[in-house]
């Protein structure tokens, strides 16, 4: 079994781009880029720890955008957010092919391109779902607050959507799985880490955190959801296909 050069990075996109930089600099024969979260020690592998370096990351990112294209850059970023275990392998191959002049957003018969486009589609679909399923609640501090648990790390993409849409209200969207949030303060968005109490979703605790009208609007929305249904067309299969159960937790219209 041949030796594999294992590049271990911090799991961030910048870290991944820094790894790509080092792979190009050192030109190892057999290479594997691994996020530290899933890296396992392997007797046969040569390990390198990659330090995330903004300058290197920017150079790689610029190179991707100018040599491979803006669309490819966007695809690579989105596929990265999928957090799938094969993302580093596929993306490194895509970047290599791209730098060699291969059209990585068009050649759908190439396995890596097909996988890339599938990852992009999966992330895009989840991003779109979060744009739809975020349910803000107005807190007593006058911040519209929502929690999400997306399948992939879509919040950076959602942040742009919500910034364009809710320019005149303060809002905070918190990813419960990945333990970080995005806060908009009427001027800019910033990434935040917070302790959010577990009981915030319970109806007992709600009056403590949220405004008086908030409960009424949730109630009106639930009523609207019921009234707009047509029982004689009931089709739960279709309903579940569009709103899978794992998303119900934060949908006010689906609460009892």
């Amino acid at each position, binding site marked *: 079994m041949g030796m594999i050069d294992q590049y271990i990075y911090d799991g961030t996109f910048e870290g991944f781009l820094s790894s790509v930089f080092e792979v190009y600099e050192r030109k190892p024969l057999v290479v594997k880029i691994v996020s530290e979260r899933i890296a396992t020690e392997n007797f046969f592998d040569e390990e390198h720890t990659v330090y995330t370096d903004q300058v290197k990351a920017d150079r790689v990112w610029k190179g991707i955008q100018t040599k491979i294209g803006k669309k490819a850059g966007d695809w690579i970023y989105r596929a990265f957010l999928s957090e799938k275990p094969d993302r580093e392998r596929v993306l490194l191959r895509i970047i290599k092919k791209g730098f060699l002049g291969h059209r990585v957003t068009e050649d759908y018969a190439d396995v890596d391109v097909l996988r890339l486009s599938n990852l992009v589609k999966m992330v895009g679909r989840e991003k779109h779902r979060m744009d739809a399923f975020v349910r803000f609640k107005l807190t007593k501090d006058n911040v519209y607050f929502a929690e999400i648990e997306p399948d992939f790390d879509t919040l950076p993409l959602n942040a742009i959507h919500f910034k364009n849409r809710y320019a005149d209200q303060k809002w905070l969207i918190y990813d419960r799985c990945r333990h970080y949030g995005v806060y908009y303060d*009427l001027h800019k968005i910033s990434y935040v880490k917070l302790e959010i109490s577990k009981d915030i979703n319970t109806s007992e605790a709600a009056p403590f955190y949220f405004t008086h*009208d908030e409960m009424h609007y949730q109630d009106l929305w639930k009523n609207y*959801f019921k*009234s707009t249904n*047509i029982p004689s067309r009931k089709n739960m299969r279709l*309903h579940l296909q569009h709103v899978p159960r794992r998303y119900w937790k934060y949908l006010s219209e689906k609460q009892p």
Partner: protein
Amino acid sequence: MNFERIKEKLNILADAAKYDVSCSSSGSKRANKNKGLGDSSGMGICHTYTEDGRCVSLLKILLTNHCIFDCAYCVTRKSNDIKRAAFKVQEVVDLTINFYRRNYIEGLFLSSGIFKNADYTMERLVAVAKKLREEENFNGYIHLKSIPGASDELMREAGLYADRLSVNIEIPSEKGLKLLAPDKKREDFIKPMQKVKNEIIQYKSEKKLIKSTPVYAPAGQSTQMIIGASGETDAEIMYTSAYFYKQFKMKRVYYSGYIPISYDERLPSIGTEVPMMRENRLYQTDWLLRFYGFDIRELLNKEHPNLETDIDPKLSWALRNLEHFPVDINKADRRMLARIPGIGMRSVHKIIQARRYRKLNWEHLKAIGISMNRAQYFLICDSSAFETKDRTAAQLKSLIMGTSGSKWRGAYSNQLNLFGSNAPLTTS
């Protein structure tokens, strides 16, 4: 705000509005400006789905369900003994804004029963939209119903605030309209449609000269027809639809399977199943006309006045026109690729991209995601393994149906019986 009273009104007026199927919130170009609220420049978003599987994108309500008309097919008809309610203009504005801020909706779809007269009603719909735009700096999506018979001046104003306008023609044929809505006239529906069409054309030409020309109904206009209430054939429905697309540059025509809401003898009785499969086939046909380059005469004509229920209209066309097949996937133009059963426009696009780099074989086509079950009999690719047998249309149909799990399979044996008992609806 008296939330209890609002809740009561909302229940009545949302329930009455739900038969309007449009929930589109796309196609507008209204971006957020001056740090206002909302943005409808992107693609539409369905914020949730009802248990019947329909998208909920807009707060869809009537301003009031008081109505001076007595159309047989409508729940809000004058003679129907139901609870009536009316929103105040400000109440609709507050509901819309508060729902929007919580990310429940993309905007408002406001319709109304007709009280006093057409203009009086239209004026109030316009007042809601105007308040939202001018007082709340709201850039979300607004769909206003054009009230049949409303004046040109009001329709002009409506389009300045709304993203989309629509008038439902409801009954596909004039004879049906006469039977079911004797106090309504076709001209009354056409008049606001014509005005909106002209305004859009005028806006587009003025915009070229003067950049600051105020936007007029950027998401265009749409209409809706009820299916299965007045005995029209699929051909009658789709020719009417094609006419409205062409004549009034409609963005969408919606088809709404009739949901029995009355014991009126002129209509299918309560308990009759909603013709959902037929509705689905009509939408498929609509898509073929708008995106796949088909002409209505190819799909429906004197020999084929109704769509087949057991197979989709594209497969049905292919089986009637086997002389065009098999199509060579590596050579055919976009138009012909789009006509292969089992290949959608997304796949057409991918095939055209991918074949620039290599000849495509079955493996490639599978990976691209075409429906092999249907497509395999209608194409050749870079492979010596292809369908060589000269099969008849009937043989192909039974082969394909034998392996396909149509979502209608359960429904359709039922529906055939149903149509059998109701002569005008019989499908071939």
